[in-house]
């Protein structure tokens, strides 16, 4: 009995050690779109239910409304201008000398908001990260470098500054309508993510920075709420802040 076991084990080891090679002969591909016309898995619905109650309670709060569809695009978009404007106002509350605002294009996290009510949850989707409003002191020269970085990236949301993109370079840069002086130090606002070198903004490393505890998301919520108090919809205009030229 003992030896039979040993023999079987040996045979098993032999076959296990020489894995029978298999060769790929055919491949097919299929794509499913997950939509709401099919079945739902009730176990997943049950698992999610308590979390959903928490999310809905906190997020389905109406904070204002918009009268136009808001979209994400380059070089300029309504969602982008809204974010850059809200960030600028939040920064200017802390320091009136802040002249311009920059948001990285990848920081717009949804493509579309429908006309109608705006909820707190929608602002969480637009800016889910806990990025904070940061104020930076930059020379005119470095500001141009940032604009060229943005030009290479095909355009980011900005406020307080305008320029044109030609051959991946920034041209005709104007700060509130006036040309930049290379030797002047300007105060600008962007997220702590960019200030720390995110999105390849490594040129901010040695600059003087003021980190704040204000979430960019809270700045968005505040901006919409302020409009609502004045009975105004959120209505960001496209103003050719950044445009492509031949």
């Amino acid at each position, binding site marked *: 009995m003992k030896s039979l*076991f040993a023999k*079987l*084990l040996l045979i*098993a*080891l*032999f*076959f*296990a050690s020489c*894995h*029978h*090679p*298999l*060769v*790929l*002969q*055919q*491949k*097919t*591909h*299929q*794509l*499913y*779109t*997950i*939509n*709401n016309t*099919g*079945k*739902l*898995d*009730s*176990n*997943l*619905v049950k*698992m*999610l239910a308590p*979390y959903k109650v*928490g*999310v809905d309670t*906190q997020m389905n709060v109406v904070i204002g409304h918009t009268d136009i*569809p808001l979209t994400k695009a380059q070089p300029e978009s309504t969602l982008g201008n809204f974010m850059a404007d809200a960030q600028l106002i939040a920064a200017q509350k802390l320091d009136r000398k802040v002249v311009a605002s920059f948001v990285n294009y990848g920081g717009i996290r949804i*493509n*579309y*908001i*429908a006309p*109608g009510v705006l909820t707190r*949850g929608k602002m*969480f*989707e637009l800016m*889910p*990260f*806990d990025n904070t409003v940061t104020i930076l002191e930059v020379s005119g020269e470095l500001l141009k470098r940032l604009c060229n970085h943005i030009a290479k990236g095909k355009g980011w949301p900005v406020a307080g500054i305008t320029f044109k993109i030609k051959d991946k370079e920034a041209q005709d840069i104007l700060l509130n309508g006036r040309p930049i002086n290379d030797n002047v130090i300007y105060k600008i606002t962007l997220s*702590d*993510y960019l200030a*720390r*070198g*995110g*999105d*390849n903004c*490594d040129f901010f490393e040695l600059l003087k920075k003021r980190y704040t505890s204000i979430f960019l998301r809270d700045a968005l919520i505040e901006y919409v709420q302020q409009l609502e108090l004045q009975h105004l919809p959120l209505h960001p205009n496209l103003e050719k802040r950044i445009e492509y030229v031949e």
Partner: protein
Amino acid sequence: MLNRRTFIKRTATGSALFALGGFPFESFASSKPIKLTLLHTNDVHSRLEPFAMDGSKYEGQGGVAARAALIAQIRSEEEHVLLLDAGDIFQGTPYFNLYKGEPEMKAMSMMRYDAVTMGNHDFDAGVDGFANQLIHANFPVLVANYEFSGTALEGKTKPYTIIKKGGLKIGLFGLGIQLKGLVPDESYGKTIYIEPIQIARSISEKLKKQEHCDFVICLSHLGYEYNYNKVSDLILAKETEHIDLIIGGHTHTFLDEPKVIRNKKGKEVLINQVGWAGLRLGRLDFIFDDKKSSNLLQTQSVIISKQTN
């Protein structure tokens, strides 16, 4: 009637055989082809619920309950199913802000994911934040080019794993994107990023040559393609020799069919990526048999695409 002693012995023999890769006689007589059904997602970004019905582009699409039902349906039809995700499980809806990834991990465990890799946004609650949620995960996290020594993830991820389906031996490994500049320094902490190509070469070779895997899959969060000098799935496919399939992520690329690339040895590598947000589920069916040569080696493979709504 079996006496207790014999019964234990027989069971022990049986489980020894099983532990060593199933009954050998099965692969002995394996003239029968084996079909592997591979399902995959990437960059789901905490999209547990479908997009709201608000006139937006993706309204009504996505959601874990619908995805789970579809996966269950496919599992009922196919014997050998592998379910994979290429990272960025976290971040993107208030679920993540409020619950830090717990329902995401629970949902993926319930859907029985076989393996995942880490995306840059999986560091958004810090290395500790991801490590904390692993108690809710019943699948391995594969990442070969992050060194987690001295972090909360030390010993909690694996560079690769081997999964057996029928007589088929599948090697899987994971690759993550460069963190510096993409993820705040304090979020990834002491994690060290290692250039992926060399690691991919050595692991895929090990899986093919030493572990004798029939098929090697890379779960990659490197991104599909860049218009500047940065390592991507296209480069990874061209620069290696032993990868058969790359399940990609990061660039949110909607590939309507897998991209076929010739590797360093002229062999075909498939790359697939299904956008983001759990809008789509990718499916690839592979049929293997024990014939010596593959007719895929000589010819450009024909990929049959089916769009299912």
